[in-house]
């Protein structure tokens, strides 16, 4: 990000930026930066807190009033919903407990589809109250995404149905859409925590969807010469969640 600051400034447009990793900004020395103590993915702190978001925005735009640079300042407040100890997500629908992150029963694909159906009411509620969904980059609906992932695990699509050159993007986007469906559905329910850690603990620790995504990661790692190997190495399970499957 800091590199872009250099380029815009050199073209005659003043630039200011949010910094999420202070040491990177210290090294790159962009013209103006506001380091914020927020997690990756939340450069303006917290959802649905306009006053907090305004305070970050005013501070970072205010850096353009400095007469000398480079400028690197620290934002003094934590994000309002940051939690040292994540809260449990209490799903009011009756998910079957996933017993083991590493193994799943023979009817895993049917259980996975049931899980998706259970959430469907809440997904519709989420779309209604938020007037948006972030799913859909794959251009598949959630059932189609699930089918694609199941077929990949069952070896039906690797290099056949999916063009080898497109497999990485198709599988990755289907996984992201699936996660969006789950997170939007569960966070639309009343009283649920909104912080990332609580929601991640639920998704990666309790859902069959996470098991399916991890199974795809394992398959990709077993085929290191394939074009989809990079999915297993980098693009499916966050580094912070790998420990659940090891």
């Amino acid at each position, binding site marked *: 990000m800091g590199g872009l600051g*250099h380029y815009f400034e050199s073209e005659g447009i003043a630039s200011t930026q*949010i910094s999420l990793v202070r040491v*990177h900004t210290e090294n790159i020395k962009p013209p103006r930066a506001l380091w914020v103590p927020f997690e990756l993915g939340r450069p303006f702190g917290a959802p649905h807190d306009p006053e907090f978001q305004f305070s970050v925005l005013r501070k*970072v735009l205010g850096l353009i009033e400095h007469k000398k640079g480079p400028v690197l300042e620290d934002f003094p407040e934590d994000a309002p919903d940051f939690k040292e100890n994540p809260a449990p997500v209490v799903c009011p629908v009756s998910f079957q407990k996933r017993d083991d992150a590493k193994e799943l029963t023979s009817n895993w694909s049917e259980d996975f589809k049931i899980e998706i159906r259970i959430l469907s009411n809440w997904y519709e509620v989420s779309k209604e109250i938020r007037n948006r969904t972030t799913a859909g980059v794959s251009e598949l609906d959630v059932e189609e995404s699930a089918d694609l992932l199941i077929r990949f695990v069952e070896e039906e699509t690797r290099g056949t149905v999916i063009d080898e050159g497109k497999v990485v993007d198709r599988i990755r986007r289907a996984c992201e859409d699936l996660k969006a469906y789950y997170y939007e559905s569960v966070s639309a329910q009343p009283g649920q925590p909104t912080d990332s850690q609580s929601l991640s603990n639920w998704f990666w620790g309790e859902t069959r969807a996470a098991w399916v995504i991890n199974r795809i990661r394992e398959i990709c790692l077993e085929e290191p010469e394939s074009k989809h190997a990079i999915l297993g190495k980098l693009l499916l399970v966050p580094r912070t969640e790998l420990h659940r499957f090891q």
Partner: protein
Amino acid sequence: MARLENYPEAVRNHLLKLPCPNFDSTPFNRPIPMKEQRVALVSTAGLHLRGDRPFGLGDADHRLIPRDTPANRLVMSHISTNFDRTGYLQDLNVVFPLERLNDLARNGEIGSVAEYHTSFMGATEPEKMKSTVVELASVMKKDGVNTVLLVPV
């Protein structure tokens, strides 16, 4: 607090190993009071209009986002899975505060909001984006933009 030392070791080590570009000096333009700023947002979250080309591995180009784009027209196709998306899916302003920026302009706290904003995908070397930035800056100057707010993810 999301300080580097508080991240899990695997994340911290990865972030510390990421290469940073070197610059001999830092260019620095004249100060602009907030009330005179015409602001364009530049994100690296891999955002784009629904139906526009999703980002793929190694993409260094950008996607334009018009000023009055409602939140439900934007999606994210960033390739990385190593940042939180649960804030973004609850409220776009967490990653791309276009609505808040428009509010600041309506309140008279900033001068105005640019006609067009843009998003890159961050998992790309900045050198590969340089020619695009030069082209973008030229278009922005024609729109009277004097301030760019860069927002990582």
